[in-house]
């Protein structure tokens, strides 16, 4: 999910100084937020959650947290919202937003400043306890490759087929095989494809501009690194079918052949 950061500037008193003011630069940034969805009975849920929290205190430190209030709201009604948010706040979590409630339902509470319309999509997250039923591990596509706990890279030893989506926000993805037309690979770091890239590859969800995409044969529909992307019609036909790397170069995407 994207959190826009505004680099603030000092205010000047005089309007005449307007031309001396620095330019305000807006930068986009992807950070991984964790979504928590407490449900009734709350005491059980928070006991289980506290256990995870104690097992890996560093896991939640400085992680933005989004509270999914849908289960609480449907099971406990309006008053459950405040209860859930208060209880989460007691644990020193960095709440940045809520899901499943309207802004007006928070009006008048200490939580009315929380964002209610965060955009973003679910990605795989490793929970500190490798619990396969953990609700925080959701895939954008049921066919996506699961990420095992503690991994910083993902190796896929077979072709990624049309319609499949591999999302690995934690690090690099290596595919031994081809990525088909209509398939996509999204990685927190770089993407290495030992085969033809015919679908989409988007690298740098977490690593940003330092990530790269490498493929043995470029026949891709789209490549992207750190919010920059390019579709096939926007690179020269001369690169088609060649071994190529894709990287960020001074704010734009550069594709270059190896051979």
């Amino acid at each position, binding site marked *: 999910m994207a959190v826009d950061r505004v680099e603030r500037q000092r205010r000047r008193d005089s309007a005449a100084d307007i031309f001396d003011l620095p330019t305000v630069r807006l930068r986009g940034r992807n950070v991984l937020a964790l979504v928590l969805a407490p449900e009734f009975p709350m005491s059980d849920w928070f006991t289980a959650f506290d256990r995870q929290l104690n097992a890996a205190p560093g896991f939640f430190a400085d992680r933005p947290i989004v509270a999914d209030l849908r289960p609480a709201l449907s099971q406990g009604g309006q008053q459950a919202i405040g209860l859930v948010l208060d209880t989460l706040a007691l644990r020193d979590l960095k709440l940045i937003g809520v899901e499943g409630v309207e802004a007006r339902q928070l009006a008048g509470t200490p939580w009315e400043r929380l964002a209610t319309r965060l955009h973003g999509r679910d990605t795989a997250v490793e929970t500190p306890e490798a619990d396969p039923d953990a609700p925080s591990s959701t895939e954008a596509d*049921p066919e996506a490759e699961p990420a095992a706990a503690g991994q910083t890279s993902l190796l896929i030893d077979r072709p990624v*087929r*049309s*319609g499949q989506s591999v999302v690995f926000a934690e690090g690099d993805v290596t595919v031994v095989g081809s990525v*088909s*037309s209509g398939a996509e690979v999204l990685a927190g770091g770089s993407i290495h494809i030992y085969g*033809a890239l015919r679908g989409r590859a988007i690298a740098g969800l977490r690593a940003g501009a330092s990530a790269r995409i490498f493929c043995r044969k470029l026949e891709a529909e789209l490549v992207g690194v750190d919010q920059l992307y390019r579709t096939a019609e926007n690179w020269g036909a001369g690169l088609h079918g060649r071994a190529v790397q894709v990287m960020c170069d001074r704010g734009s995407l550069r594709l270059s052949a190896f051979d």
Partner: protein
Amino acid sequence: MSKVMVVTSGKGGVGKTTSSASLGAALAQRGQSVVLVDFDVGLRNLDLIMGAERRVVFDLVNVIQGDAKLPQALIRDKRLETLSLLPASQTRDKDALTEEGVGRVIDELKERFDWIICDSPAGIEKGATLAMRYADVAVVVTNPEVSSVRDSDRIIGMLDSKTRRAESGERIDKHLLLTRYDPARAARGEMMKVEDVLEILAVPLLGIVVESPDVLTASNMGAPVTLHNPASPAAQAYVDAARRLLGEDVPFAQPAARQQGLFSRLFGKKAAAA
């Protein structure tokens, strides 16, 4: 040990039903006991291709719902003793199929037949996923054109993730059957080449069935091409494919030679005309 084989493609009109019938007949002709199961509930065709449309009393849905016993619904082929058909229902839709019910019917069929051939409907929805659900072997039918190849790729991904075998960590045996192949058009670059299709799909080749009027004629006559016109190149291709399914090592050299012959004949004709 009986085998459950799904014939699937994603895209419609590529020749799934024709291939199911022809492979089934070819296997039966080699002494295997075979049942063809039509999963295209609501749009059944297999009974027509097999020439059994006037013999359908009960169907797959009746058996799943317990309205009929399996032997009542099975139709034995009049030409081949060891070939049977379990037709689909034309008046119902795919929601009449349940995973549990399909599993029960397939288990029962396994006790009676060496090969259970599931003719999948087009698409990636319930009918197609249930047809592949219990498969040990998959034949992916593909035409040499980009849309068919991409749809097949999607289906192969589903075979590797949504079947019983895949879910229990085993791999499903996948084979590519290239149908409606026109060597002359491929040579002129109007159609994808065999190598291109194989490179994209990365699945071993089971056979190449050349586009031929024999196949359509056979379908209209209600007979698999392997029975109707055994000498035709299409029938030969299906027989070779069936032999490969039985584990025989049948070389591919012959169809390649024939393709070249056809191409040079065509070329020769053109030269003569000029």
